Protein backbone atom coordinates (compact mmCIF):
# COMPACT_ATOMS: atom_id res chain seq x y z
CA UNK A 1 0.00 0.00 0.00
CA UNK A 2 2.79 2.38 0.84
CA UNK A 3 4.02 2.24 -2.75
CA UNK A 4 0.74 3.79 -3.91
CA UNK A 5 0.95 6.69 -1.52
CA UNK A 6 4.36 7.54 -2.96
CA UNK A 7 2.79 8.34 -6.32
CA UNK A 8 2.13 12.10 -6.30
CA UNK A 9 -1.46 13.29 -6.45
CA UNK A 10 -0.74 15.09 -9.73
CA UNK A 11 0.05 11.76 -11.37
CA UNK A 12 -2.95 9.97 -9.90
CA UNK A 13 -5.41 12.69 -10.84
CA UNK A 14 -7.83 12.42 -13.75
CA UNK A 15 -6.79 15.02 -16.28
CA UNK A 16 -9.81 17.05 -17.42
CA UNK A 17 -8.01 18.38 -20.48
CA UNK A 18 -7.42 14.87 -21.80
CA UNK A 19 -11.15 14.07 -21.71
CA UNK A 20 -13.47 14.74 -24.62
CA UNK A 21 -16.49 17.02 -24.24
CA UNK A 22 -18.93 14.27 -23.23
CA UNK A 23 -16.56 12.76 -20.67
CA UNK A 24 -15.87 16.21 -19.23
CA UNK A 25 -19.57 16.88 -18.76
CA UNK A 26 -20.04 13.48 -17.13
CA UNK A 27 -17.29 14.25 -14.59
CA UNK A 28 -19.38 17.15 -13.29
CA UNK A 29 -22.86 15.72 -12.73
CA UNK A 30 -23.99 13.84 -9.63
CA UNK A 31 -23.73 10.08 -10.35
CA UNK A 32 -26.72 8.72 -12.22
CA UNK A 33 -28.38 12.10 -12.83
CA UNK A 34 -26.99 13.09 -16.24
CA UNK A 35 -28.98 12.56 -19.39
CA UNK A 36 -27.80 13.66 -22.80
CA UNK A 37 -30.24 15.63 -24.95
CA UNK A 38 -30.12 15.02 -28.70
CA UNK A 39 -27.23 12.58 -28.43
CA UNK A 40 -25.01 11.46 -31.31
CA UNK A 41 -27.19 8.42 -32.12
CA UNK A 42 -29.88 10.79 -33.32
CA UNK A 43 -27.38 11.85 -35.98
CA UNK A 44 -28.43 15.44 -36.34
CA UNK A 45 -25.45 16.80 -38.23
CA UNK A 46 -24.40 20.03 -39.87
CA UNK A 47 -26.07 20.24 -43.29
CA UNK A 48 -23.36 22.67 -44.48
CA UNK A 49 -20.12 20.73 -43.98
CA UNK A 50 -20.59 17.73 -46.34
CA UNK A 51 -21.12 19.97 -49.36
CA UNK A 52 -17.72 21.50 -48.59
CA UNK A 53 -16.01 18.12 -48.40
CA UNK A 54 -15.75 18.19 -44.60
CA UNK A 55 -16.90 15.24 -42.49
CA UNK A 56 -19.64 16.26 -40.07
CA UNK A 57 -19.93 14.83 -36.57
CA UNK A 58 -23.10 13.27 -35.19
CA UNK A 59 -23.33 15.63 -32.22
CA UNK A 60 -22.05 18.63 -34.21
CA UNK A 61 -19.39 19.07 -31.53
CA UNK A 62 -21.89 20.11 -28.88
CA UNK A 63 -22.95 17.89 -25.97
CA UNK A 64 -25.99 18.90 -23.91
CA UNK A 65 -26.50 17.09 -20.59
CA UNK A 66 -29.36 17.73 -18.21
CA UNK A 67 -28.67 16.60 -14.68
CA UNK A 68 -27.85 17.65 -11.15
CA UNK A 69 -24.82 19.02 -9.39
CA UNK A 70 -24.86 18.92 -5.60
CA UNK A 71 -28.54 18.00 -5.85
CA UNK A 72 -29.40 21.14 -7.84
CA UNK A 73 -30.75 21.03 -11.38
CA UNK A 74 -28.26 22.07 -14.06
CA UNK A 75 -27.75 21.87 -17.77
CA UNK A 76 -24.22 21.34 -19.05
CA UNK A 77 -23.26 22.37 -22.57
CA UNK A 78 -19.84 21.08 -23.56
CA UNK A 79 -18.14 22.06 -26.81
CA UNK A 80 -15.81 19.51 -28.39
CA UNK A 81 -12.51 21.21 -29.13
CA UNK A 82 -11.46 18.19 -31.21
CA UNK A 83 -14.15 18.83 -33.83
CA UNK A 84 -13.65 21.90 -36.02
CA UNK A 85 -11.93 23.58 -33.03
CA UNK A 86 -15.20 23.65 -31.10
CA UNK A 87 -16.58 26.21 -33.51
CA UNK A 88 -20.21 27.27 -33.45
CA UNK A 89 -22.33 26.23 -36.37
CA UNK A 90 -26.05 26.19 -37.00
CA UNK A 91 -26.77 22.94 -35.14
CA UNK A 92 -24.32 23.33 -32.26
CA UNK A 93 -25.57 26.89 -31.77
CA UNK A 94 -29.21 25.81 -31.77
CA UNK A 95 -28.42 23.10 -29.21
CA UNK A 96 -26.77 25.58 -26.86
CA UNK A 97 -29.54 28.16 -27.28
CA UNK A 98 -32.27 25.56 -26.69
CA UNK A 99 -30.53 24.32 -23.53
CA UNK A 100 -30.28 27.85 -22.13
CA UNK A 101 -33.89 28.68 -23.03
CA UNK A 102 -35.23 25.51 -21.40
CA UNK A 103 -33.17 26.17 -18.27
CA UNK A 104 -34.63 29.70 -18.22
CA UNK A 105 -38.16 28.34 -18.59
CA UNK A 106 -37.67 25.87 -15.71
CA UNK A 107 -36.09 28.64 -13.62
CA UNK A 108 -39.04 30.93 -14.23
CA UNK A 109 -41.36 28.13 -13.19
CA UNK A 110 -39.58 27.89 -9.86
CA UNK A 111 -37.01 25.18 -10.66
CA UNK A 112 -33.83 27.25 -10.74
CA UNK A 113 -31.53 25.61 -13.28
CA UNK A 114 -27.94 26.77 -13.59
CA UNK A 115 -26.00 26.40 -16.83
CA UNK A 116 -22.46 25.06 -16.93
CA UNK A 117 -20.68 25.84 -20.20
CA UNK A 118 -17.50 23.95 -21.08
CA UNK A 119 -16.06 26.23 -23.72
CA UNK A 120 -13.31 24.95 -25.99
CA UNK A 121 -13.92 26.99 -29.07
CA UNK A 122 -12.41 29.24 -31.68
CA UNK A 123 -15.72 31.06 -32.14
CA UNK A 124 -17.76 31.12 -35.34
CA UNK A 125 -17.45 28.09 -37.63
CA UNK A 126 -16.36 29.91 -40.77
CA UNK A 127 -17.80 27.17 -43.01
CA UNK A 128 -21.23 28.17 -41.69
CA UNK A 129 -20.20 31.80 -41.33
CA UNK A 130 -23.32 33.91 -40.99
CA UNK A 131 -25.39 31.20 -39.33
CA UNK A 132 -22.56 30.74 -36.81
CA UNK A 133 -22.40 34.46 -36.08
CA UNK A 134 -26.18 34.62 -35.70
CA UNK A 135 -26.07 31.55 -33.44
CA UNK A 136 -23.62 33.31 -31.13
CA UNK A 137 -25.85 36.40 -31.00
CA UNK A 138 -28.74 34.08 -30.06
CA UNK A 139 -26.68 32.24 -27.42
CA UNK A 140 -25.79 35.61 -25.88
CA UNK A 141 -29.44 36.64 -25.78
CA UNK A 142 -30.59 33.37 -24.23
CA UNK A 143 -27.72 33.37 -21.74
CA UNK A 144 -28.72 36.84 -20.53
CA UNK A 145 -32.35 35.78 -20.17
CA UNK A 146 -31.32 32.79 -18.00
CA UNK A 147 -28.84 34.89 -16.04
CA UNK A 148 -31.74 36.83 -14.51
CA UNK A 149 -32.71 33.67 -12.63
CA UNK A 150 -29.75 31.32 -12.27
CA UNK A 151 -25.96 31.47 -12.58
CA UNK A 152 -23.95 30.64 -15.71
CA UNK A 153 -20.66 28.92 -14.92
CA UNK A 154 -18.10 28.80 -17.71
CA UNK A 155 -15.17 26.39 -17.55
CA UNK A 156 -12.24 26.88 -19.91
CA UNK A 157 -9.83 24.03 -19.38
CA UNK A 158 -7.83 23.98 -22.62
CA UNK A 159 -6.21 23.23 -24.85
CA UNK A 160 -8.26 25.04 -27.51
CA UNK A 161 -9.26 27.87 -25.18
CA UNK A 162 -12.15 30.25 -25.74
CA UNK A 163 -11.91 32.79 -28.54
CA UNK A 164 -13.85 34.84 -31.05
CA UNK A 165 -17.50 35.55 -30.46
CA UNK A 166 -17.66 32.84 -27.82
CA UNK A 167 -15.33 34.90 -25.63
CA UNK A 168 -18.31 37.26 -25.18
CA UNK A 169 -20.29 34.28 -23.88
CA UNK A 170 -17.54 33.71 -21.31
CA UNK A 171 -17.51 37.43 -20.50
CA UNK A 172 -21.25 37.38 -19.79
CA UNK A 173 -21.03 34.36 -17.49
CA UNK A 174 -21.56 34.67 -13.74
CA UNK A 175 -18.33 32.82 -13.02
CA UNK A 176 -15.34 31.67 -15.07
CA UNK A 177 -13.11 28.77 -14.01
CA UNK A 178 -9.83 28.31 -15.90
CA UNK A 179 -6.77 26.08 -15.76
CA UNK A 180 -3.27 27.47 -16.29
CA UNK A 181 -3.27 25.73 -19.70
CA UNK A 182 -6.43 27.55 -20.86
CA UNK A 183 -6.59 30.79 -22.83
CA UNK A 184 -9.36 33.36 -23.10
CA UNK A 185 -9.52 36.26 -25.54
CA UNK A 186 -11.52 37.83 -28.37
CA UNK A 187 -8.76 37.56 -30.97
CA UNK A 188 -6.18 34.83 -31.05
CA UNK A 189 -2.54 35.79 -31.61
CA UNK A 190 -2.57 34.43 -35.19
CA UNK A 191 -5.48 36.66 -36.13
CA UNK A 192 -3.85 39.74 -34.62
CA UNK A 193 -0.60 38.97 -36.41
CA UNK A 194 -2.50 38.59 -39.70
CA UNK A 195 -4.52 41.76 -39.28
CA UNK A 196 -2.08 44.09 -37.57
CA UNK A 197 1.38 42.68 -38.29
CA UNK A 198 4.01 40.64 -36.49
CA UNK A 199 5.30 43.70 -34.66
CA UNK A 200 1.87 43.98 -33.02
CA UNK A 201 1.74 40.33 -32.00
CA UNK A 202 4.26 37.59 -32.75
CA UNK A 203 2.05 34.51 -32.70
CA UNK A 204 5.06 32.20 -32.30
CA UNK A 205 5.78 33.77 -28.91
CA UNK A 206 3.93 31.33 -26.69
CA UNK A 207 5.13 32.92 -23.46
CA UNK A 208 3.59 36.22 -24.58
CA UNK A 209 0.32 34.53 -25.52
CA UNK A 210 -0.01 32.90 -22.10
CA UNK A 211 1.11 36.08 -20.35
CA UNK A 212 -1.88 37.84 -21.97
CA UNK A 213 -4.57 35.19 -22.55
CA UNK A 214 -3.58 32.49 -20.06
CA UNK A 215 -5.70 31.36 -17.12
CA UNK A 216 -3.29 32.62 -14.50
CA UNK A 217 -3.34 36.11 -16.02
CA UNK A 218 -7.10 36.25 -16.58
CA UNK A 219 -7.82 35.18 -13.00
CA UNK A 220 -4.99 37.33 -11.69
CA UNK A 221 -6.39 40.46 -13.34
CA UNK A 222 -9.89 39.69 -12.08
CA UNK A 223 -11.63 39.00 -15.41
CA UNK A 224 -12.03 35.31 -14.50
CA UNK A 225 -12.81 33.91 -11.08
CA UNK A 226 -10.84 30.81 -10.25
CA UNK A 227 -7.66 29.12 -11.36
CA UNK A 228 -7.78 25.35 -10.92
CA UNK A 229 -5.18 22.76 -11.84
CA UNK A 230 -6.01 20.27 -14.59
CA UNK A 231 -7.73 17.79 -12.28
CA UNK A 232 -11.29 16.64 -12.95
CA UNK A 233 -12.12 16.36 -9.24
CA UNK A 234 -10.90 19.88 -8.53
CA UNK A 235 -12.73 21.35 -11.49
CA UNK A 236 -15.91 19.54 -10.45
CA UNK A 237 -15.53 20.90 -6.92
CA UNK A 238 -15.11 24.46 -8.24
CA UNK A 239 -18.19 24.12 -10.46
CA UNK A 240 -20.21 22.70 -7.55
CA UNK A 241 -19.16 25.61 -5.37
CA UNK A 242 -20.43 28.14 -7.91
CA UNK A 243 -23.68 26.25 -8.57
CA UNK A 244 -24.31 26.39 -4.82
CA UNK A 245 -23.29 30.06 -4.59
CA UNK A 246 -26.09 31.09 -6.96
CA UNK A 247 -26.13 34.49 -8.62
CA UNK A 248 -23.42 37.02 -7.83
CA UNK A 249 -24.56 40.41 -6.51
CA UNK A 250 -23.46 42.06 -9.75
CA UNK A 251 -22.14 40.55 -12.96
CA UNK A 252 -18.75 41.55 -14.33
CA UNK A 253 -20.20 42.60 -17.69
CA UNK A 254 -22.48 45.07 -15.84
CA UNK A 255 -19.55 46.90 -14.23
CA UNK A 256 -19.30 49.37 -17.06
CA UNK A 257 -18.13 52.42 -15.10
CA UNK A 258 -15.39 50.48 -13.29
CA UNK A 259 -13.90 49.10 -16.50
CA UNK A 260 -14.41 52.30 -18.44
CA UNK A 261 -12.34 54.14 -15.82
CA UNK A 262 -9.69 51.43 -15.95
CA UNK A 263 -9.44 51.71 -19.74
CA UNK A 264 -9.22 55.50 -19.47
CA UNK A 265 -6.25 55.14 -17.09
CA UNK A 266 -4.20 53.00 -19.48
CA UNK A 267 -1.10 54.53 -21.06
CA UNK A 268 -1.68 53.64 -24.72
CA UNK A 269 1.60 55.06 -26.03
CA UNK A 270 3.16 51.62 -25.62
CA UNK A 271 2.07 48.01 -25.17
CA UNK A 272 0.49 47.20 -21.81
CA UNK A 273 2.63 45.14 -19.44
CA UNK A 274 0.49 42.12 -18.44
CA UNK A 275 1.97 41.97 -14.94
CA UNK A 276 1.27 45.60 -14.19
CA UNK A 277 -2.35 45.33 -15.35
CA UNK A 278 -2.70 42.30 -13.09
CA UNK A 279 -1.42 44.37 -10.22
CA UNK A 280 -3.68 47.31 -11.01
CA UNK A 281 -6.88 45.40 -11.67
CA UNK A 282 -6.44 42.11 -9.95
CA UNK A 283 -7.42 40.63 -6.71
CA UNK A 284 -4.42 38.27 -6.92
CA UNK A 285 -6.21 35.00 -6.23
CA UNK A 286 -4.00 31.96 -5.67
CA UNK A 287 -3.99 28.75 -7.67
CA UNK A 288 -6.19 26.32 -5.86
CA UNK A 289 -4.18 23.29 -4.88
CA UNK A 290 -0.85 24.88 -5.78
CA UNK A 291 1.96 24.92 -3.26
Amino acid at each position, binding site marked *: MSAITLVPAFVRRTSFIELNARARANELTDPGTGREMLGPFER*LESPWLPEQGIAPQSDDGCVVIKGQIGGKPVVIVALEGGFQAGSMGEVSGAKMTAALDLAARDSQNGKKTAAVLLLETGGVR*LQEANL*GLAAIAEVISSLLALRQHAPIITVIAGTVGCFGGMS*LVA*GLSSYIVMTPEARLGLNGAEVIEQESGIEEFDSSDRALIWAINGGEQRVGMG*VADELVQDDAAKIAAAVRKYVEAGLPRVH*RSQQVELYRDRIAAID*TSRQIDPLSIRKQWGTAKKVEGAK
Partner: protein
Amino acid sequence: MSAQVGLRGRAWFQALTAKDPPLDGDPGSVLTADAILGTDKARFLCVVPNPQGRFPCVRRGEVGLEEAYALARRICEAVEQDESRNKRPIVAIVDVKSQGYGRREETAAIFLAAAAAADAYATARMKGHPVISLVVGQAISGGFLTHGYQASRILAFDDSGVVIHAMHKEAAARITLRSVADLERLGHEILPMSYDIRDYAKLGLLHKLLHVENPDNPAAPTVGQVRDALIEAVADARAGATDLGNHFKSEDARKIRLAGLTARARIEAEWATA
Protein backbone atom coordinates in the same frame (compact mmCIF):
# COMPACT_ATOMS: atom_id res chain seq x y z
CA MET B 1 -12.68 46.05 -48.36
CA SER B 2 -13.63 49.61 -48.94
CA ALA B 3 -11.44 52.37 -47.55
CA GLN B 4 -14.64 54.27 -46.86
CA VAL B 5 -15.67 52.31 -43.78
CA GLY B 6 -17.33 54.54 -41.24
CA LEU B 7 -18.02 57.47 -43.55
CA ARG B 8 -21.46 56.16 -44.26
CA GLY B 9 -22.06 55.59 -40.59
CA ARG B 10 -21.27 59.21 -39.84
CA ALA B 11 -23.30 60.46 -42.84
CA TRP B 12 -26.39 58.56 -41.69
CA PHE B 13 -25.94 59.50 -38.05
CA GLN B 14 -25.86 63.15 -39.08
CA ALA B 15 -28.78 62.76 -41.47
CA LEU B 16 -31.00 61.12 -38.85
CA THR B 17 -30.05 63.31 -35.89
CA ALA B 18 -29.49 66.57 -37.80
CA LYS B 19 -31.22 68.92 -35.38
CA ASP B 20 -29.78 67.34 -32.26
CA PRO B 21 -26.02 67.60 -31.74
CA PRO B 22 -24.09 64.59 -30.40
CA LEU B 23 -23.89 64.39 -26.61
CA ASP B 24 -20.63 65.38 -24.95
CA GLY B 25 -18.43 62.93 -23.12
CA ASP B 26 -17.92 60.13 -25.63
CA PRO B 27 -14.60 59.23 -27.25
CA GLY B 28 -14.15 60.67 -30.76
CA SER B 29 -15.06 57.30 -32.22
CA VAL B 30 -18.55 57.11 -30.70
CA LEU B 31 -21.48 59.35 -31.56
CA THR B 32 -24.58 59.48 -29.35
CA ALA B 33 -27.64 61.69 -29.84
CA ASP B 34 -31.22 61.74 -28.66
CA ALA B 35 -33.30 62.75 -31.67
CA ILE B 36 -36.92 62.72 -32.74
CA LEU B 37 -38.10 59.55 -34.45
CA GLY B 38 -41.83 59.67 -35.15
CA THR B 39 -43.51 60.39 -31.83
CA ASP B 40 -40.46 59.21 -29.86
CA LYS B 41 -37.19 60.68 -28.83
CA ALA B 42 -34.81 57.88 -29.79
CA ARG B 43 -31.20 57.32 -28.78
CA PHE B 44 -28.96 56.96 -31.83
CA LEU B 45 -25.51 55.36 -31.48
CA CYS B 46 -22.77 55.06 -34.06
CA VAL B 47 -19.10 53.99 -34.11
CA VAL B 48 -16.96 56.02 -36.54
CA PRO B 49 -13.27 56.15 -37.49
CA ASN B 50 -11.14 58.42 -35.37
CA PRO B 51 -7.60 58.82 -36.75
CA GLN B 52 -6.56 60.54 -33.50
CA GLY B 53 -7.86 57.76 -31.25
CA ARG B 54 -5.82 56.72 -28.21
CA PHE B 55 -5.64 53.08 -29.28
CA PRO B 56 -3.64 52.65 -32.51
CA CYS B 57 -5.38 49.49 -33.74
CA VAL B 58 -8.90 50.94 -33.70
CA ARG B 59 -8.54 54.18 -35.61
CA ARG B 60 -10.32 53.03 -38.79
CA GLY B 61 -13.79 52.34 -37.50
CA GLU B 62 -13.14 49.15 -35.56
CA VAL B 63 -14.91 48.56 -32.24
CA GLY B 64 -12.32 48.57 -29.48
CA LEU B 65 -12.22 48.94 -25.71
CA GLU B 66 -13.26 52.59 -25.47
CA GLU B 67 -15.98 52.17 -28.08
CA ALA B 68 -17.53 49.12 -26.41
CA TYR B 69 -17.62 50.67 -22.94
CA ALA B 70 -18.88 53.99 -24.32
CA LEU B 71 -21.76 52.20 -26.07
CA ALA B 72 -22.52 50.18 -22.93
CA ARG B 73 -22.53 53.34 -20.81
CA ARG B 74 -24.86 55.23 -23.15
CA ILE B 75 -27.31 52.34 -23.34
CA CYS B 76 -27.30 51.75 -19.57
CA GLU B 77 -27.86 55.49 -19.12
CA ALA B 78 -30.97 55.42 -21.34
CA VAL B 79 -32.28 52.31 -19.59
CA GLU B 80 -31.85 53.94 -16.17
CA GLN B 81 -33.42 57.22 -17.26
CA ASP B 82 -36.43 55.40 -18.72
CA GLU B 83 -36.85 52.97 -15.83
CA SER B 84 -40.34 54.24 -14.97
CA ARG B 85 -41.41 55.90 -18.20
CA ASN B 86 -41.88 55.22 -21.90
CA LYS B 87 -38.88 53.17 -23.07
CA ARG B 88 -37.16 55.11 -25.81
CA PRO B 89 -36.06 53.35 -28.99
CA ILE B 90 -32.32 52.69 -29.28
CA VAL B 91 -31.00 52.82 -32.83
CA ALA B 92 -27.56 51.38 -33.62
CA ILE B 93 -26.26 52.78 -36.88
CA VAL B 94 -23.82 50.08 -37.98
CA ASP B 95 -20.78 50.57 -40.18
CA VAL B 96 -18.00 48.66 -38.42
CA LYS B 97 -15.24 46.81 -40.22
CA SER B 98 -14.48 44.56 -37.24
CA GLN B 99 -13.53 44.41 -33.60
CA GLY B 100 -10.12 45.88 -32.72
CA TYR B 101 -7.27 43.53 -33.58
CA GLY B 102 -4.52 44.67 -31.25
CA ARG B 103 -2.30 43.47 -28.44
CA ARG B 104 -3.39 46.31 -26.15
CA GLU B 105 -6.97 45.28 -26.71
CA GLU B 106 -6.30 41.65 -25.82
CA THR B 107 -4.21 42.52 -22.77
CA ALA B 108 -6.98 44.76 -21.41
CA ALA B 109 -9.62 42.05 -22.01
CA ILE B 110 -11.54 43.37 -25.02
CA PHE B 111 -13.70 40.23 -24.73
CA LEU B 112 -15.18 41.69 -21.55
CA ALA B 113 -15.71 45.12 -23.15
CA ALA B 114 -17.56 43.51 -26.05
CA ALA B 115 -19.59 41.45 -23.58
CA ALA B 116 -20.52 44.60 -21.64
CA ALA B 117 -21.87 46.28 -24.80
CA ALA B 118 -23.81 43.18 -25.86
CA ASP B 119 -25.13 42.91 -22.28
CA ALA B 120 -26.33 46.53 -22.38
CA TYR B 121 -28.08 46.18 -25.76
CA ALA B 122 -29.75 42.88 -24.80
CA THR B 123 -30.77 44.19 -21.37
CA ALA B 124 -32.35 47.27 -22.98
CA ARG B 125 -34.26 45.00 -25.35
CA MET B 126 -35.42 42.66 -22.57
CA LYS B 127 -36.62 45.66 -20.54
CA GLY B 128 -38.85 46.74 -23.41
CA HIS B 129 -36.75 49.24 -25.35
CA PRO B 130 -37.17 48.75 -29.08
CA VAL B 131 -33.57 48.19 -30.21
CA ILE B 132 -33.10 48.66 -33.94
CA SER B 133 -29.96 48.03 -35.98
CA LEU B 134 -29.59 50.01 -39.16
CA VAL B 135 -26.78 48.43 -41.18
CA VAL B 136 -25.62 51.12 -43.60
CA GLY B 137 -22.17 49.68 -44.39
CA GLN B 138 -20.16 46.86 -42.88
CA ALA B 139 -21.21 44.72 -39.93
CA ILE B 140 -18.41 42.26 -39.45
CA SER B 141 -17.74 39.66 -36.80
CA GLY B 142 -17.09 40.82 -33.24
CA GLY B 143 -17.76 44.39 -34.34
CA PHE B 144 -21.38 43.49 -35.06
CA LEU B 145 -21.73 41.25 -31.97
CA THR B 146 -20.64 44.27 -29.90
CA HIS B 147 -22.66 46.90 -31.75
CA GLY B 148 -25.96 45.85 -33.24
CA TYR B 149 -26.56 42.10 -33.25
CA GLN B 150 -28.64 42.15 -30.05
CA ALA B 151 -31.24 44.31 -31.80
CA SER B 152 -34.93 43.46 -31.76
CA ARG B 153 -35.07 44.26 -35.49
CA ILE B 154 -32.27 44.56 -38.07
CA LEU B 155 -32.63 46.77 -41.15
CA ALA B 156 -30.00 46.81 -43.88
CA PHE B 157 -29.50 48.70 -47.11
CA ASP B 158 -29.77 46.72 -50.32
CA ASP B 159 -26.43 47.93 -51.60
CA SER B 160 -23.11 46.38 -52.60
CA GLY B 161 -21.34 48.42 -49.90
CA VAL B 162 -23.28 46.58 -47.21
CA VAL B 163 -21.67 43.43 -45.84
CA ILE B 164 -22.79 41.39 -42.85
CA HIS B 165 -20.37 38.58 -42.19
CA ALA B 166 -18.44 36.53 -39.67
CA MET B 167 -15.05 37.58 -41.01
CA HIS B 168 -13.78 39.65 -43.89
CA LYS B 169 -12.87 37.74 -47.03
CA GLU B 170 -9.09 37.82 -46.89
CA ALA B 171 -8.85 36.65 -43.28
CA ALA B 172 -11.55 33.99 -43.70
CA ALA B 173 -9.69 32.63 -46.72
CA ARG B 174 -6.42 32.38 -44.79
CA ILE B 175 -7.98 30.72 -41.76
CA THR B 176 -9.97 28.14 -43.72
CA LEU B 177 -6.95 27.51 -46.00
CA ARG B 178 -8.76 28.60 -49.14
CA SER B 179 -8.13 31.20 -51.79
CA VAL B 180 -10.29 34.32 -51.92
CA ALA B 181 -11.58 33.11 -55.29
CA ASP B 182 -12.58 29.75 -53.76
CA LEU B 183 -14.29 31.53 -50.91
CA GLU B 184 -16.26 33.70 -53.35
CA ARG B 185 -17.29 30.66 -55.34
CA LEU B 186 -18.37 28.85 -52.16
CA GLY B 187 -20.28 31.95 -51.13
CA HIS B 188 -22.41 31.63 -54.24
CA GLU B 189 -23.10 27.96 -53.53
CA ILE B 190 -23.45 27.99 -49.76
CA LEU B 191 -25.85 30.63 -48.56
CA PRO B 192 -24.49 31.40 -45.05
CA MET B 193 -21.00 31.92 -46.50
CA SER B 194 -22.08 34.53 -49.02
CA TYR B 195 -20.83 38.11 -48.74
CA ASP B 196 -23.87 39.39 -50.66
CA ILE B 197 -26.46 41.18 -48.51
CA ARG B 198 -29.28 39.77 -50.66
CA ASP B 199 -28.13 36.27 -49.72
CA TYR B 200 -27.92 37.31 -46.07
CA ALA B 201 -31.53 38.49 -46.36
CA LYS B 202 -32.54 34.93 -47.30
CA LEU B 203 -31.39 33.64 -43.89
CA GLY B 204 -34.44 35.27 -42.29
CA LEU B 205 -32.45 37.39 -39.85
CA LEU B 206 -33.36 40.77 -41.33
CA HIS B 207 -36.53 42.66 -40.58
CA LYS B 208 -36.27 44.44 -43.92
CA LEU B 209 -33.88 45.10 -46.75
CA LEU B 210 -34.18 48.77 -47.74
CA HIS B 211 -33.65 49.94 -51.31
CA VAL B 212 -32.08 53.38 -50.98
CA GLU B 213 -30.78 55.84 -53.55
CA ASN B 214 -27.20 57.00 -53.14
CA PRO B 215 -26.57 55.79 -49.58
CA ASP B 216 -23.17 57.55 -49.39
CA ASN B 217 -24.78 60.93 -49.76
CA PRO B 218 -28.46 60.59 -48.98
CA ALA B 219 -30.94 63.20 -50.21
CA ALA B 220 -33.80 64.35 -48.01
CA PRO B 221 -36.43 61.98 -49.46
CA THR B 222 -34.10 59.00 -48.90
CA VAL B 223 -33.53 60.05 -45.30
CA GLY B 224 -37.31 60.35 -44.91
CA GLN B 225 -37.78 56.88 -46.35
CA VAL B 226 -35.26 55.37 -43.92
CA ARG B 227 -36.77 57.29 -41.01
CA ASP B 228 -40.18 55.82 -41.89
CA ALA B 229 -38.66 52.34 -42.00
CA LEU B 230 -37.15 52.91 -38.54
CA ILE B 231 -40.50 54.11 -37.17
CA GLU B 232 -42.20 51.03 -38.56
CA ALA B 233 -39.50 48.76 -37.09
CA VAL B 234 -39.91 50.43 -33.68
CA ALA B 235 -43.68 49.83 -33.77
CA ASP B 236 -43.14 46.24 -34.85
CA ALA B 237 -40.61 45.66 -32.06
CA ARG B 238 -42.97 47.16 -29.47
CA ALA B 239 -45.73 44.83 -30.64
CA GLY B 240 -43.50 41.75 -30.48
CA ALA B 241 -41.58 39.69 -27.95
CA THR B 242 -38.40 41.01 -26.30
CA ASP B 243 -36.25 38.00 -27.24
CA LEU B 244 -34.62 37.15 -30.58
CA GLY B 245 -37.36 34.69 -31.53
CA ASN B 246 -38.07 36.74 -34.65
CA HIS B 247 -34.83 35.31 -36.11
CA PHE B 248 -36.71 32.06 -36.71
CA LYS B 249 -40.18 33.24 -37.60
CA SER B 250 -39.95 33.98 -41.31
CA GLU B 251 -40.61 31.43 -44.00
CA ASP B 252 -36.99 31.81 -45.14
CA ALA B 253 -35.65 31.01 -41.68
CA ARG B 254 -37.87 27.95 -41.33
CA LYS B 255 -36.49 26.62 -44.58
CA ILE B 256 -32.82 27.59 -44.32
CA ARG B 257 -32.43 26.86 -40.61
CA LEU B 258 -34.35 23.60 -40.64
CA ALA B 259 -31.49 21.66 -39.02
CA GLY B 260 -31.21 24.14 -36.15
CA LEU B 261 -34.97 24.26 -35.65
CA THR B 262 -35.10 20.44 -35.64
CA ALA B 263 -32.34 20.33 -33.02
CA ARG B 264 -34.30 22.76 -30.91
CA ALA B 265 -37.59 20.88 -31.20
CA ARG B 266 -35.98 17.55 -30.30
CA ILE B 267 -34.18 18.92 -27.26
CA GLU B 268 -37.43 20.51 -26.11
CA ALA B 269 -39.26 17.19 -26.43
CA GLU B 270 -36.52 15.24 -24.64
CA TRP B 271 -36.19 17.84 -21.92
CA ALA B 272 -39.77 17.28 -20.82
CA THR B 273 -39.19 13.59 -20.15
CA ALA B 274 -35.66 13.77 -18.70
